[in-house]
């Protein structure tokens, strides 16, 4: 993971569940690119086709609720999203994101972002900036080892590095 990320905002509301993130019919694969091609298509049909590498999801409460399937986090990562910022995340979804190395931030900035705004995130300094609206927000940084997990690209890669 880079320590910076910059991309356009895609907004999603409250209680986006794992079935909406990746419908069950696509669960026959765990290839993140393939999953990414159907990511969130039932909520916003334009999303999978138009999302660009580096783009950022901004959402409301309880993002990722529902089943504990890891495919949901993989689909978002596979779509090219560089970070998800939500007011709150469902518990196992939050774990899964960190475990597969998808950066997430728990912060309520929904009201301060418009669709397509340009955001930049400095993970090291803990700052989110809405460049389109010239607004800055601070975020709580994850502790060192959680950051390491994300930076290494996920829990298993981190484990691999740390068991040698």
């Amino acid at each position, binding site marked *: 993971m880079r320590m910076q990320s910059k991309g356009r905002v895609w907004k999603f509301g409250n209680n986006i569940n794992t079935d909406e993130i990746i419908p069950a019919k696509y669960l026959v694969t765990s290839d993140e690119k393939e999953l990414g091609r159907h990511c969130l298509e039932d909520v916003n049909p334009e999303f999978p086709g138009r999302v660009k590498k580096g783009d950022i999801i901004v959402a409301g409460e*309880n993002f990722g609720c529902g089943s*504990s399937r890891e495919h949901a986090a993989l689909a978002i990562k596979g779509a090219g999203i560089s970070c998800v910022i939500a007011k709150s995340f469902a518990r196992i979804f939050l774990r899964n994101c960190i475990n597969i190395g998808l950066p997430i931030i728990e912060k309520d900035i929904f009201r301060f972002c418009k669709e397509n705004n340009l955001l930049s995130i400095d993970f090291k300094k803990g700052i989110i900036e809405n460049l389109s609206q010239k607004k800055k927000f601070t975020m709580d940084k994850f502790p060192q080892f959680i950051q390491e997990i994300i930076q290494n690209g996920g829990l298993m890669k981190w484990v691999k590095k740390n*068991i040698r």
Partner: protein
Amino acid sequence: MTITEKILAGHTNKKEVVPGDFILADVDLALGNDITAPTAIEEFKKAGGKKVFDPEKIVLVPDHFSPAKDLESARLAKRLKLFARKHKIAHYYELGRMGIEHALIPEQGLVSPGNLVVGADSHTCTYGALGAFSAGIGSTDLAAAFITGKCWFKVPETIKLVYYGKLPKWVSGKDLILHTIGDIGVDGAHYKAMEFTGEVIKNLAMDSRLTMCNMAIEAGAKNGIIAPDEITYEYLHSPLSTLHSLFKSDPGANYAEVREYDVSKIEPQVAFPPLPSNSKPISRVGRVLIDQVVIGSCTNGRISDLRTAASIMKGKEVKVRTIIIPATQKIYLQALKEGLIETFIKANCVVSTPTCGPCLGGHMGVLAEDEVCISTTNRNFVGRMGSPKSKVYLSNPAVAAASAIKGRIAGPGK
């Protein structure tokens, strides 16, 4: 600190933790089943895992689709068996010794007060009833735990739930937890620990405690927990631990919220579809005709549940299809010895070998379109037990048994 915070801190090199801290903690037990463990095994192999951290601390239970319901589930169970053999996993339960994981593990004495248990199954929170910290995790977490014996956590805040008053007849742990979830909602304890306390809990039998902690996840909680006491140690057949005082919350512990319930006002509850929080007292249920009754699962498939159901069915016949599933082999045998199985069969019930089966719409009692079931399980989500057009109501075993006799949802009477 609260009991949850104490146990978490005790499994790190820290003296103290506060809610919000991220920690890397040692696990005492890591659990997987026939649905979640195969994915974890795959990840384990991909990461180049050669050895598990401790073959004594891993539990593998094929319970969801067993005895294998089709070729796919047979393959999943086979992967579990081969992995268990290769790594000499001490606690692998083949059919014949098997039971539903969350009933089997406490029964086998694999969890002690103060333990930290993780499981790739959301109802792993059940073991909080034994005074352990116990939480559901993902398959990747489980793979990492297999290798390292560790798991990361964000320390949760705790909600304290205090139950007082006299428990009315037929009101059990299931009713207390359904009532509580009805009160706080399915995300009422989001990320948090639910600590069950008060004079009612102190006198509550272990089976009911297990039921309450089992359903903590249905309020969005990370874990449910009950401080260990005489009842706990009696259940575990072990002497009162000298560490006992470590496993209770300090008088000055910080709680996110404290709620009190006067149980003398609580009736047997029925949770209407499609959420466990849609609970109503039995007197306000109205006329609901049913097609099926299920008594079993990790929530209410224990011996006391079967005793309650049999006491109501004795000498009577059920009006609708009724499926009874003892949660473990031991419970099954005990029920046989006590004549409960005979009571059920004479009442025209079906009695099955231990399995999750209908609870997750897997097998052994899947519902067709527009069919209605009352079940002692823990989830009544859309399509949980079969067709998305079927309906599931949740209740305790007494209400389920009385409903089976009447062919509609009914209370067990006085």
